[in-house]
């Protein structure tokens, strides 16, 4: 019997919907501040900084970071860590653009790591839709949720 078999199973939340209730508009003023905070000037052609793929999906997914952790039976105070982030852009994001978010949890996998002990690896997918419904960008994010109580 493997070591993992002795652990309680990871939360069964694959498929949990992360659809946002409202929309996210990329403000030109905020985009300018964001660009400057990363050491560049905003684009003059109306395109937003592409990192809004992450910001807009996180802010408008219908769950706070703490809420998403709670769905996975994890206390945000225990320190979720970003593992990886993938983005696939169909079009550039634009300031003034209004976007809606859809998404879902793809998996939560319990693992044992030499460095972190027991951890859950959460993978979720979010999409930013333009007002016409077209997907502007799709992102898969992986978070590591250290399960100190199971270490």
């Amino acid at each position: 019997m493997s070591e993992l078999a002795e652990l309680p199973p990871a939360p069964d939340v694959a498929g949990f919907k992360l659809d946002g209730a409202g929309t996210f508009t990329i403000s030109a003023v905020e985009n300018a501040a964001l660009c400057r905070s990363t050491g560049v000037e905003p684009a003059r052609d109306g395109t937003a900084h592409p990192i809004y793929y992450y910001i807009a999906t996180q802010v408008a997914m219908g769950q706070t970071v703490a809420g998403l952790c709670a769905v996975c039976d994890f206390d945000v105070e225990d320190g979720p860590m970003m593992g990886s982030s993938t983005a696939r852009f169909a079009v550039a994001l634009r300031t003034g653009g209004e976007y809606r978010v859809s998404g879902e949890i793809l998996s939560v996998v319990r693992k044992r790591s030499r460095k972190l002990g027991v951890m859950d690896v959460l993978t979720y997918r979010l999409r930013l839709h333009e007002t016409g419904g077209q997907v502007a960008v799709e992102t898969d994010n992986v978070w590591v949720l250290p399960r100190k109580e199971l270490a």
Partner: protein
Amino acid sequence: MSYAVGDSLPPFVINSVSPAAMKEWAVFLADPNPIHLDVEVVKAKGLGDRVINQGPINVAYLMNMLLAAFPGGRIESMDTRFLDNVYGGDTVTASGRVTAVDGRRVSCDISLDVEGRGTVNAGTATVQI
């Protein structure tokens, strides 16, 4: 402008990662996690003695490097792994190398390095030029 496999992309450097920017990003991300805002919380959690940069800012540095390397280009895809933290005051360098050229599509390996500590983010990207 032409690109060839093996070409290095011009690096994008942040001389000192700004704790003030982290405060702005807490608002942008609607995420007030205190490890990005309060050094005493970082110390209490045993995570170091400086505030920790939000992960998406590190991705933004990599995007800045790509957009400067390919003026007028559009990032089509990007995949980054978070290997270690970036702290307030760190000097970071985003860099890349061309791995494939297919018409107007250029693929690259990308990385973000902290002076004195090595690679903290690594991944791949494809840019339409």
